[in-house]
């Protein structure tokens, strides 16, 4: 049964500096999206080959159309530090392969603290 866990002070969760907690034997990272300033929580393990996912970068997703047209879209992804696979920060899904999904967790901020339900 999942519970809410106090992970870090909100002020300490800045873009590029994840807060990592171990809950029920699993590492969970709390990260800030530099574009939206929202905080999200994601399991700190890439389902592809086990890298510490939260050492990757949080980026705005790029989509495109043939002919060399690139477009930033309203979607945040975390990019694995090892092989560059992308996972949606909101859903944990790998847009390129639905056989891969990383766990994401509900987050709320109360009294300056970041709480994660896990």
């Amino acid at each position, binding site marked *: 049964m999942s519970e809410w866990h106090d992970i870090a002070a909100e002020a300490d969760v800045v873009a590029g500096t994840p807060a990592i907690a171990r809950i029920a034997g699993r590492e969970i990272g709390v990260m800030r999206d530099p574009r939206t300033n929202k905080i999200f929580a994601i399991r700190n393990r890439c389902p592809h080959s086990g890298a510490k996912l939260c050492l990757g970068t949080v980026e705005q997703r790029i989509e*495109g159309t*043939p*002919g060399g047209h690139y477009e930033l879209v309203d979607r945040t992804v975390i990019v694995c530090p090892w092989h560059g696979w992308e996972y949606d920060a909101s859903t944990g899904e790998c847009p390129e392969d639905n056989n891969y999904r990383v766990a994401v967790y509900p987050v709320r901020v109360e009294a300056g603290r970041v709480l994660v339900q896990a």
Partner: protein
Amino acid sequence: MIDCDIHVQISHPEEILKYVDEAERDWFRKQSFVLGLPGYPWMNPSTWFRLDLAVDENGMPASNPQVVAAEALDNQGAVIGVLTADDALSVGLMENPYRAATLARAHNDWFQHDWFPVDERFRGSIILPTQDTAAAVAEVERCAVNPKFVQILLPGGSERPYGDPRYLPILEAAAAHGLAVAIHSGMEGMGLAHQPSGAGTPTFYIEWHTIGSACSIQAHLISLLTHGTFRRLPDLKVLMIEGGLAWLPGMLWRHDTNWRGLRDDTPWIDELPSETMKRHIRFATQPLEHTNGNDELLWQMLAAVGAPDILCYTSDYPHWDGDESKWLENRIPESWRQGVMHDNAAAFYGNRLNLPVTR
């Protein structure tokens, strides 16, 4: 059976030059290799052709339409034979784009006037001066009105892989007319084409034949998929000829793997490239690699990337490394035979093939 690769031979340059304006004929006559086409740096150490075929007065096989109809169609049980160029496959690699346009037109006219009328089972390939995109498109438009042409034919050797935007209008013109795009290995390192591998020039014919002719096909395959060519041209269909098959699963898996990690460089690719391949690209069966007793493994690997539906029979007649139809038919799994030997090509070429009602 449908054979998608029959290499008819030019026995004498004048057969082609009769379709060249008089003002240009002497130029072609004076070229050192046949008709000014780029020559092979690596010569076959024994023979380019099977030695059991009939030859003409110049010692050339596959140069007479009636003989080709007998040897490549009657004897093999073919209902359709798609004629492909031989040396003239390199016309798009000539240094002179104007002479290339002239020669391509003449070769295409040679097919139309000297070959198609002889046997109703003949279909043909349009060769193009790809050095000049506008001229190549114009030639596609000129030839497409003849229903006997079922494809354009591009060489494996090239200035850039065929996903490059310079080739898009040519591919677009083909697709608009329902013509397939056949890419035939060969001509790597000839004329304007780059060398066959990134490791430099091969020394021996066997080196070129093993790696050179495969890696150009691999490059075009990955290029077309990476550029999103099939998203731009949903009706485009491509036949890869004579580049080998056993490497295909590995190359596609490698490409899929890389795409997952590198997709933001080509974000228009919105599905596994191997899935796009299955819808748009077909592979000629010849030369089917000998597997040293591991045929079952080969079938399993090819099935993993879409076989048998992605395979179309080719003989490569009259070349030394051709695959006889009966030999191929007996080697592949029985459940693959109807598709590989006939139905896949029929579906691939579609209405353009104008198949006879009975076979």
